[in-house]
């Protein structure tokens, strides 16, 4: 079980690292945002989502897609503009979706996914699905009006939305603490009448518990919940970020508490053989190499189709 978790997290890490390589080598172009260090939030939260639940992520969403079951090959293909990409290359790294896997899309407008998730929950009020709609956004997004509106809307109408704020301490290059007077972001949800918790997002158990309760509340028609998950990205905001804003020593500390290092330590302390632990990483990397290689062989999306799908 814990080894499964480690494997799940390694899948995300390995995917992100392979994406980084492909970005630096050329097959992937443009702006790419990795979620290294935040894997536990995606893995823990998605472990509690049911097929009928809807997940809305951000540009930093590759890991969430993997955790939701989107095949890595289709993600790689998407980022490389292949016809086999989840959206045939139209979404790209920052704006792809795979509704067939309950992954209702990244969003590259900060905060804009939250109102859309509200709509997924609204639909659930009428379709009998008992759907929970989860929207994930960063600490910085909490200052966007769309998020405030979405939270109140869900609260007022009693809609089953799970608001997950991944507090990784930075909005791009700016510390969140400089952009708020009250560092407890969950208070904003409480103030709207939304049950809210702050958790250690590096702790899979906390993420699971908070998500389970939130999804149960949504499914039972008890309305929205809010989870502020403290985490850290151990890479730049985007590939190429020089990370000059980081105070000395921060990254070193983060590398100790980040969830893969943490779970690895736990497993070893539990007496799990080193070999089993290391196999997770190896297996994940192999899977991603295979997926990426397959995607690289896939044909590029055909420019002749570029005009399709604008209208019904």
């Amino acid at each position, binding site marked *: 079980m814990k080894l499964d978790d480690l494997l799940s997290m390694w899948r995300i890490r390995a995917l992100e690292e392979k994406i980084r390589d492909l970005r630096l080598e050329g097959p992937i172009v443009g702006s790419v945002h990795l979620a290294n260090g935040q894997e536990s939030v995606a893995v823990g939260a998605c472990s509690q989502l049911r097929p009928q639940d*809807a997940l*809305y992520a951000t540009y930093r969403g590759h890991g969430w897609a993997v955790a939701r079951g989107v095949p890595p090959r289709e993600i790689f293909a998407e980022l490389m503009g292949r016809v086999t990409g989840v*959206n*045939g290359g*139209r*979404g790209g790294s920052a*704006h*792809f*979706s*795979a*509704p*067939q896997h309950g992954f*209702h*899309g990244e*969003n590259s*407008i900060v905060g*804009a996914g*939250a*109102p*859309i*998730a*509200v*709509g*997924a*929950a*609204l*639909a*659930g*009020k*009428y*379709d009998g699905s008992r*759907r929970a*709609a989860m929207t994930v956004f960063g600490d910085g997004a909490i200052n966007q*009006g*769309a998020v405030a*509106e*979405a939270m*109140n*809307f869900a609260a*007022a*109408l009693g809609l089953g939305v799970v608001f997950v704020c991944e507090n990784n301490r930075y909005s791009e290059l700016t510390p969140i603490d400089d952009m708020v007077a009250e560092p407890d972001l969950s208070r904003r949800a409480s103030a709207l009448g939304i049950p809210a918790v702050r958790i250690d997002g590096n702790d899979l158990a906390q993420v699971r518990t908070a998500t389970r309760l939130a999804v149960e509340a949504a499914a039972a028609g008890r309305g929205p919940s809010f989870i502020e998950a403290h985490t850290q990205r151990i890479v730049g905001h985007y590939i190429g970020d020089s990370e000059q804003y980081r105070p000395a020593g921060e990254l070193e500390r983060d590398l100790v508490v980040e969830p893969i290092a943490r779970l690895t330590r736990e497993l070893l302390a539990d007496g799990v053989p080193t070999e089993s632990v290391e196999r997770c990483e190896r297996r994940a990397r192999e899977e991603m190499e295979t997926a990426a290689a397959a995607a690289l062989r896939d044909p590029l999306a055909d420019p002749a189709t570029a005009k*399709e*799908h*604008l*209208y*019904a």
Partner: protein
Amino acid sequence: MPEIVKLNVGGAVNAALARALDEMPETLLYGEDVALPGGVFGVTRGLQKRFGDRVFDTPISETAMLGAAVGAASFGRRPIVEIMWIDFSLVAFDQIVNQAANVRYVSEGRTTAPLTIRTQQGNAPGACAQHSQNLEALLLHVPGIRVAMPRTPQDSYDVLLAAIASDDPTVVIENRTLYAGSKEAVEIGGPVQPIGGHRRRRTGSDATVVCWGAITAKVLDAVDRLEGEGVSVDVIEAVWLNPFDTEVVLESAARTGRLLVVHEAARTGGFGAEVLARVAESGVPLRTAPRRLGLADSRIPSAPQLAAALLPQTNDVETALRELVAGGAA
């Protein structure tokens, strides 16, 4: 079983909404004050009573309202959202342009956004600058969003139903000065029409006028005045602006050789420019330079006499047509 009833525009909109709610169980109708109070213009009166919780009031949160429409639409609902004034859509323009318009295209059709935004626009006496704008051109520059501007009771009924039935995000722009207008015979209950189409309001050979929205009434008044003098004008009311019936305009302009476009929106960058550009590109020969009438590029003052000085009036249309006809007389 189609049936003829007497309705004003407000009544026609209400009837279309009632029918949509009745026949399409996936429809939802919501907005500020639309449910319990029946709308600030009374247009949605009685619908919550009749259709229960599929009709509901919302907080004053246009971004949440429109985002919720995008999300609900992707899960099989067919939301109809009222944005009370088009001016207010600007607080939530992201959800229209970056979200609703993108969904289908970016997902290769895996996700769709069959939602309808009902809104209304235009100047009315005493309205302030933030409640007077005509903003259809902003939406018409956004690929992926359908736009219609019905005016008569019949069109208000037909276009709204077509919009709701359409699988694309569609903005139906009404005009509050028309809701309480006189009742006309409206055929309701007929087959739901596809989106698109224009109305030829007058047939003539001396000039072509293309117009849309409430200002069409002024155009028709001006044209009718000229009619008495033996000047006959083709009047094409573009009820749908996206899709726009370019071919019809080209055919008419080619025939009359004279073109005037009239809209209430600001002249610069208005959709009138697009119409003139399409005609110019087509190479259709005109007998004289085409003309546009629109709001003189300005903000809109509250005092009625000031606003009237900036917005095209019947006389302005008449004068423009006279000059046009004289100009191409040679």
